[in-house]
């Protein structure tokens, strides 16, 4: 390949002859007659050597030299100088001319000069090549260094992070027991899917995998090849999360939860992937424990035979158990006072409000109505539910059905009341009875027949009264269910009449029993119904005895049967009842008989009739008499 040479001289002869000579030497020669033309050629041809006369019109050699050097400092310029140009020629050297030759040009000298220049050019080229190679080499090597540095930094970062996590878990102390024990394997992978760094735990449990393929630690992935979370992260550039199985260095399989995170270079390309694997076998165990505990809590919540509701400060129910839902409806989201107490406003004495205020348990007894209309007495206890900072955020209300207890209590209370109220009468009765016995004994001692007879009557009457009282008390005290057995009504009524007749006779009261035969069979509680009828009849006797306005008295006891019912009528012409007495006749403990009455008799009679699904009516006029009308349906 020939070197390109530009010859610049204003003399055409020189251009021709020198041109030929130079071509022979092997150069590709281009010519120009002055500096300006030379520059034009220079720009297009780009010669590596310029041979130029110094003295030329338009632009001289020196100017040309400067211009060329400005354009291309590597172009070698040789000056051709005349004798008188020596100083000029030397100053050209100052402007980086390569050499100068004097006119007339000695071909050998020119040849030698050019050869020197050739060598110089050749050396320069060589140098350039070396330099470029070196730069490339340096660039390559330093990229590699940078990459290694980055990996190292990533590895160090991972180590630091693991240490930080360990440090954190140490800070948690006992409070985070399972966190301390939670094994966390950390590794960094490069784009070639090789492990470049691992943490201590990884090394201990999974083995020294640095330099190994990313998938080797996973079960089954060696077969699948490129499918794991690390590869996916490189592919998609996004972090992955998946359940995998890893193999320990002892061969055991370990269920893990793997999270990956891409580490990108400044150009956004994912260079490394951070892989964190957490042993989930411990977590699974804890989750199971948690589930069992939650199940136990739920069972307790549902199985407790109380109404349980939890509400917040805004009166909204946040949880309720099944029993609550059954009797009051689904409460969650509803206002507590609306669904439980059927009130539009919060209850004024709400124990839950009190618990919100002071964090202590409170209680309240109330009557609530279920969806089926049944009213119940409930006792509600409130208990605070606190958050992590100890504030009461919700309150649980536990309500127990105490209806039966209250009913029992009422029963016992009235029993107690009754016993208290009759005790005075009982004492009187007992004293009178003792008196009768004393008089009997005394009469016997004295042989006083009158006294004996009198005493005996007294005793009989009082024993009868005590018996009635005891039976009434027993009836009232025990379960008051009717035991109905089939009985011929006429038979029952006749028995009743028989019991009452002697007493009426003793008091000289005309007693008429109008009882037809074969009235029919009915399912009746014989003992209690008989006692009730006897009670009413004896009341009639007492009313007659107490009535002093008439010379004689009569009581009638009649029974009849209709298609629908059996009817008993008891009438007397005794003292009658005032309106007040009539109104209170069947109430508990009301007695118009002063100490003689117990207040139980008519109450129980009324109760017995009611339990037979019958009705009892009372009509009376003071001074005239009284009538009791009892109706018992056959089907009752």
């Amino acid at each position: 390949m020939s070197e390109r040479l530009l010859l610049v001289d204003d003399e055409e002869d020189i251009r021709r002859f020198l041109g030929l000579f130079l071509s022979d030497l092997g150069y590709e020669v281009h010519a120009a007659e002055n500096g300006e033309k030379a520059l034009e050629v220079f720009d297009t041809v780009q010669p590596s050597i310029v041979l130029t006369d110094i003295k030329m019109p338009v632009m001289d050699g020196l100017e040309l030299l400067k211009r060329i050097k400005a354009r291309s400092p590597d172009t070698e310029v040789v000056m051709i100088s005349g004798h008188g140009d020596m100083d000029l020629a030397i100053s050209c050297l100052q402007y980086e001319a390569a050499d100068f030759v004097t006119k007339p040009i000695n071909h050998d000298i020119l040849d030698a000069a050019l050869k020197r220049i050739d060598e110089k050019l050749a050396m320069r080229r060589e140098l350039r090549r070396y330099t470029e190679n070196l730069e490339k080499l340096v660039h390559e090597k330093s990229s590699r260094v940078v990459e290694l540095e980055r990996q190292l930094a990533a590895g160090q970062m991972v180590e630091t992070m693991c240490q930080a996590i360990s440090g954190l878990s140490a800070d948690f102390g006992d409070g985070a027991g399972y966190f301390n024990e939670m094994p966390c394997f950390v590794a960094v992978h490069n784009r070639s899917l090789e492990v470049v760094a691992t943490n201590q735990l990884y090394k201990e449990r999974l083995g020294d995998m640095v330099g190994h393929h990313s998938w080797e630690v996973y079960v089954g992935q060696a077969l699948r090849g490129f499918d794991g979370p690390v590869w996916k992260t490189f592919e998609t550039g996004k972090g992955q999360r998946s359940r995998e199985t890893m193999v320990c260095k002892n061969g055991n399989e370990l269920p893990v939860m793997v999270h990956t995170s891409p580490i990108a270079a400044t150009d956004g390309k994912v260079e490394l992937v951070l892989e964190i694997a957490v042993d989930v076998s411990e977590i699974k165990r804890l989750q199971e424990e948690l589930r069992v505990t939650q199940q136990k809590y739920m069972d307790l919540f549902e199985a407790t035979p109380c109404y349980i509701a939890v509400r917040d400060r805004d009166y909204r129910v946040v949880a309720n158990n099944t029993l609550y839902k059954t009797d009051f409806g689904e409460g969650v989201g509803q206002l507590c006072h609306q669904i439980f107490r059927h009130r539009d406003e919060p209850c004024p004495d709400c124990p839950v409000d009190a618990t919100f205020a002071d964090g202590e348990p409170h209680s309240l007894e109330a009557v609530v109505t279920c969806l089926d209309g049944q009213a119940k007495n409930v006792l509600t206890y409130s208990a605070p539910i606190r958050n992590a900072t100890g504030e009461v955020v919700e309150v649980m209300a536990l309500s127990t059905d105490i209806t039966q207890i209250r009913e029992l209590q009422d029963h016992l209370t009235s029993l107690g009341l009754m016993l208290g109220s009759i005790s005075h009468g009982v004492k009187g009765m007992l004293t009178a009875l003792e008196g009768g016995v004393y008089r009997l004994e005394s009469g016997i001692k004295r042989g006083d027949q009158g006294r004996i007879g009198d005493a005996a009557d007294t005793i009989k009457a009082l024993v009868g009264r005590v018996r009635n009282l005891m039976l009434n008390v027993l009836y009232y005290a025990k379960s008051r269910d009717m035991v109905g057995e089939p009985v011929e009504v006429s038979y029952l009524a006749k028995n009743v009449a028989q019991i009452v007749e002697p007493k009426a006779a003793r008091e000289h009261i005309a007693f008429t029993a109008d009882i037809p035969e074969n009235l029919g069979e009915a399912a009746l509680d014989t003992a209690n119904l008989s006692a009730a009828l006897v009670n009413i009849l004896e009341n009639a006797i007492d009313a007659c005895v107490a009535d002093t306005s008439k010379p004689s008295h009569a009581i009638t006891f009649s029974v009849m049967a209709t298609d629908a019912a059996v009817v008993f009528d008891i009438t007397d012409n005794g003292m009658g009842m005032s309106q007040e007495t009539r109104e209170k006749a069947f109430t508990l403990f009301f007695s118009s008989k002063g100490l003689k009455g117990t207040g139980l008799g008519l109450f129980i009679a009324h109760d017995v009739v009611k339990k037979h699904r019958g009705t009892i009516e009372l009509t009376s006029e003071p001074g005239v008499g009284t009538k009791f009308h009892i109706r018992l349906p056959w089907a009752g």
Partner: protein
Amino acid sequence: MPKTILIVDDDPNIRDYLETLLSDNGYDTLTAENGEKALEVLAANTPDLITLDIEMPERTGPWFNRALSRSKTQANIPIIVITGHVGLKYVIPTAVGSLSKPFEPAELLALVRETIGS
């Protein structure tokens, strides 16, 4: 001259009892069925002792006692309370004794003897 005892009680059986008991033991007896009737009896008689029931219709024992205490001549007649009520001993502060029904006849007789002799 036998001592006279006025028996005040609304229960005739108890009046009979006390009458028999006291007369068997040598006392004469008068009876009244309530406080008002008792005052009527006292208008014509001055017994040596009064047995008094507390709870009676029309006029109670305490009423009677208050009425009696206003009397110039009879206010000092000793009273023994015989009642079915418990804890009413102090309703009649001037009573010489109080028995609750049912009472022990021996106890009553002893108290009567103590108060007025036999």
